[in-house]
């Protein structure tokens, strides 16, 4: 892969990378392509018929030749037939191109979305949601315009132009030369204008991007702006952005007007030349009136497509810019690689082990885990205790291979997790995060998540076990009740219970609980504690704890600090050890006797 160019203006070459997507629908495109010469032909036929009508039928009839008009009716019928054929062909062509274009877009969307699914969490740490979202939606949409409209129109125009020149030359090459005498001049003007137009368009696009970035920031920061009473300055600054853009846009309007006028004048001057040279021919008897009319008709058809050249260039540039961004995303290497020959998931009869694991979030960052050894045996309940940044959540993320560690191994029954299919590995765990993410969907779908893998019975059983069924029953439609955006219509406690049910529904081997730090009222609190108790019963569990009172009963407590294990053992062992945990525990409970029970 070649690295993307760092120029502001996207090179059109990037559009070549669309080839495999286009090739997948080549049959459809070929069928659509077949209509093109016929359509161009239809464009050429009408003026020809006109010429025949004038030269063979109307002029002789005017000169009193009998029967000349009879053939006119046949001619008109042919004209009508060509017309009907043209309408049918044009419909077929437009529709086929749209089918192909939109299918290509669908494929491209699937490819982009599919690739995003392969990207690891570290990608999302670096790229805001809105940006990735634009790639999948509006950037692909921009290409659609080019695919289904611009590209076809361009091909059609070129075929028609070539057709016109060939037919004209065949009829009378001298008259053809007269018709295109101005063309070199026009070409020079267009060439000069195109370069300037391109520059203004590129500059305008940059300014638009800047203006939009400013606007986006003003909208998101409007609260701050108003709190500091700085609206006026903000408005002024926006005006400056608008001023800059207007200036360049007006220049663009001037250039494109000049371009449009040049094309029009070229058409008119060519008409004059055809008239003059053709007129001499008429006098000399080498050219007929019909040919003159035919040429006049062709001229209009030849020059018109040149007029919106600048718009076409602009849409091409837009498409190139969009493809650049799309392919940059598609080139993004998934940080989590799937081994070539994945090993089957072990039965988990022994333990999960961290063996000298070192992990940092980014290259060159200080490691959050350094040479960590940790064992989680089957059936064991282990609590992780430590301050923010001690490495508790990193352990959980590395264990599920949401991030790739740099040194050491993580094994399940001796099998390195890097030799397993990451998705099978992750299904092995059931996670309850601190902050529950809910989808705008039904309660059932939010518990099951993958409705093909989890049955409705399992959903209900899971909800029952964590006592979520009670509140679900009160919702209109119960399990089918739809949640608002991100579960907006549920309380924090209810969302927690749903997260428990969700973690349980997939019947995981290991439960991972990140205890919520946000507090809830005491009634909900005790309900959650009860649910938690049911959740971990008979299971292997790893708990990230934020309160000492909740973890006294676990099999083992691991005290982490700066990515290293400082102490581990049961509550009793650690208290006997008299180290950090014991100090913490005593401090808390001696000082707060009577308040913390």
């Amino acid at each position: 892969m070649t690295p993307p160019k760092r120029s502001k203006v996207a090179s059109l070459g990037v559009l070549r990378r669309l080839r495999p997507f286009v090739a997948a629908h080549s049959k459809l495109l070929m069928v659509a392509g077949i209509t093109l010469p016929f359509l161009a032909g239809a464009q050429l036929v009408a003026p020809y018929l006109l010429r025949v009508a004038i030269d063979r039928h109307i002029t002789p009839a005017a000169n009193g030749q009998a029967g000349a008009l009879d053939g006119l009716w046949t001619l008109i019928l042919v004209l009508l037939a060509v017309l009907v054929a043209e309408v049918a062909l044009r419909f077929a062509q437009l529709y086929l191109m749209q089918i192909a274009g939109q299918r290509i877009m669908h494929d491209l969307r699937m490819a982009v979305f599919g690739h995003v699914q392969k990207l690891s969490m570290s990608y999302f740490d670096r790229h805001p949601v809105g940006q990735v979202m634009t790639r999948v939606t509006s950037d692909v949409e921009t290409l659609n315009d080019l695919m289904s409209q611009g590209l076809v129109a361009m091909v059609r125009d070129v075929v028609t132009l070539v057709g016109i020149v060939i037919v004209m030359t065949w009829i009378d090459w001298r008259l053809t030369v007269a018709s295109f005498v101005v063309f070199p001049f026009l070409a020079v003007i267009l060439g000069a204008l195109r370069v300037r137009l391109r520059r203004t368009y590129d500059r305008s696009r940059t300014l638009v991007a800047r203006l939009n970035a400013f606007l986006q920031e003003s909208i998101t920061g409007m609260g701050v702006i108003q709190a500091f009473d700085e609206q006026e300055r903000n408005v002024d600054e926006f005006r400056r952005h608008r001023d800059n853009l207007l200036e360049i846009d007006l220049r663009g309007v001037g250039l494109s007007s000049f371009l449009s006028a040049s094309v029009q004048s070229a058409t008119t001057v060519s008409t004059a030349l055809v008239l003059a040279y053709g007129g001499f021919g008429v006098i000399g008897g080498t050219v007929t009136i019909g040919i003159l009319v035919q040429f006049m008709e062709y001229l209009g058809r030849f020059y018109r497509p040149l007029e919106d050249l600048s718009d076409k260039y602009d849409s091409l540039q837009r498409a190139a810019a969009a493809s650049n961004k799309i392919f940059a995303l598609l080139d993004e290497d998934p940080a989590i690689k799937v081994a070539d020959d994945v090993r089957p998931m072990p039965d988990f009869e022994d333990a999960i082990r961290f063996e000298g694991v070192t992990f940092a979030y980014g290259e060159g960052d200080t490691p959050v885990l350094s040479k960590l050894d940790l064992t989680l045996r089957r059936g064991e309940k282990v609590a992780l205790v430590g301050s923010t940044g001690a490495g508790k959540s990193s352990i959980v993320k590395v264990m599920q291979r949401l991030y790739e560690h740099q040194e050491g191994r993580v094994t399940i029954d001796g099998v390195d997790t890097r030799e397993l299919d990451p998705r099978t590995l992750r299904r092995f765990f059931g996670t309850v995060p601190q902050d529950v993410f809910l989808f705008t969907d039904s309660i059932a779908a939010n518990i099951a998540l993958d409705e093909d893998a989890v049955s409705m019975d399992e959903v209900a059983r899971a909800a029952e076990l964590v006592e979520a069924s009670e509140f679900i029953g009160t919702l209109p439609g119960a399990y089918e009740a739809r949640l608002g955006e991100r579960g907006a219509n549920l309380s924090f406690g209810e969302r927690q219970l749903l997260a428990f049910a969700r973690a349980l529904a997939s019947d995981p081997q290991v439960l991972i609980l990140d205890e919520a730090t946000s507090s809830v009222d005491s009634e909900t609190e005790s309900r959650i504690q009860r649910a938690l108790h049911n959740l971990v019963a008979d299971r292997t569990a790893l708990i990230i704890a934020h309160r000492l009172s909740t973890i006294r009963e676990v099999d083992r407590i691991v005290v982490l600090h700066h990515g290293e294990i400082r102490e581990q053992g049961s509550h009793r062992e650690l208290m006997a050890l008299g180290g950090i945990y014991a100090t913490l525990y005593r401090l808390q409970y001696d000082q707060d006797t009577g308040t913390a029970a």
Partner: protein
Amino acid sequence: MSALVLTNALSMAIPRVFGAAVDAFTQGADRRRVTMFALAIVAIAVAQAVSRVISRIVVLGTSRRVEYDLKGMLHDKLAQLAPSFYDAFSTGDLMSRMTNDVMLVRALGGPGILYFTNAMLVYLLGTAFMVSLSWQLTIVVLAPLPLMAWLVRGTVHKVRAFALSSREALSDLNTVVQENLAGAGVVRSFALEEAQMRRFDERSTAYLDWGLKESRARAQMIPMIGLAGGLSYAAVLALGGPMAAAGAVSIGDLVAFVGYIGMMIFPTVALGWILSLMQRGTAALERLDKILQAPVTISSGAGALALSELRTDVTVSDYTFRYHDALDAYTHLQDGDAAHERPPALRGVSLRVEAGTFVALVGRVGSGKTTLLKSLLRLVEVPPGAIALDGADINDYDVADVRRAVAYVPQDDFLFSDSVAANIRFGAPDADDATVVAVAELAGIDLSSEGLANGLETEVGERGANLSGGQRQRVALARALLRDAPILVLDNALSNVDTDTERRILAGLSAQRSGRTVIAASNRITAVQDAECIYVFDSGEIVDSGRHDELAARPGLYASMREQQQLSARLEELP
């Protein structure tokens, strides 16, 4: 506009000249006359070029100016609208209105008007020229037009209906993408990639299907317009041929008619496009009007009190606040559902802050602290009688005065993509360097050890992305301190700063307070234990109040929050 008329009149004269020339040739003109005709057309070309440049520059230039003004008007309005407006309209929605919709209006005002006027002029002038040649032929040339208009009308309706469904399908698709990205963690840890792909495939296919239906309807429309042009050709030949043979019209007239039909086809094709431009433009204008018509809920009334010598006694009495009251005014503009009924954010809250004191608000997330703090700056719609500053209702003062009197460190540490210094200067652009450095130090920004590559000139990135959470909060604090206002409001302002630094900053602040009032909300007990009075919030109500010692000694929310926090605090203190 006259340039536009001139351009078209000149263009429309060409077939006429051409026709006259043809007639001259058939009657045996000499080379001189031929050259005269050609020169006449060249003269037209020159005049045409000039008038075309002028007309396009005027019309298209105007549309750019309209865009310029429209964006300005919208932004002015956005600057006035209260934060509750932004709760009802998402940033994405507003951005789409300010960009896509404004562009559609511009297209309506520029190319839309240009091509529409062009088309009308071509019809009008063309008809006039044609009638002057032969009224019978004019009628047959124009006859297919109503037929075409009728055919197109039906399709336009269909296109519109399909376009609407297609847009809805797209919005469904976007929701899937949005949630897939926002919930990237869940998707991965539950291995939902394939389920998500299926879901996306489903929506993308639905979008494709509607798109194709729309395309089919559109694809029917364009050839129909071509059909009308072709029918006109046939009609001219059918009627004009015999007429020319009979000498009723000349051959040159016939040629002129053919020329006119050719000129009318393009504007007619364009008309279909203009129609959709107009539809979309007016729809966009409506969407923009929603913003322009949105009521401004927070403003200074006529004859507002000036707040100059503020002693800043703040009295809150029996204050109840519901977000959806304010939201309702905006959600109906969105055609969305009314805001979900939720319990009030504040319920009968009363408290008093005397000038120069340090008062703290403590409570869980969502207990109403932020709402109360925002009220002090009138960032929410405060009902009359709820809050008084120095004895007068807060709504009676000039809004700008109130906001100048209160320096605010919001919970969301929003920074602008600019340098650290520029962000600190945000509320006081004229402050000198020494003062900026002084407040930066007071806010705990250690320039030597922060890893800020260019010191105060370091760029903070979009939303401050180049800084850590704690750094962002300290910059936001410095920004507020530079305002040098009598009241300093801190909303969970140091939650991402480690406890040690927090303690140092707070100590520095209290040393420099010099009569300033500090009102601080915090989820962290350590941040507030020195406050002269701590109010404990729960579900929008004040459930307890007192000094740290008193509150810590009795069982309740405060004591239990403290228990939770001590663990992490102590762990952090480990060597």
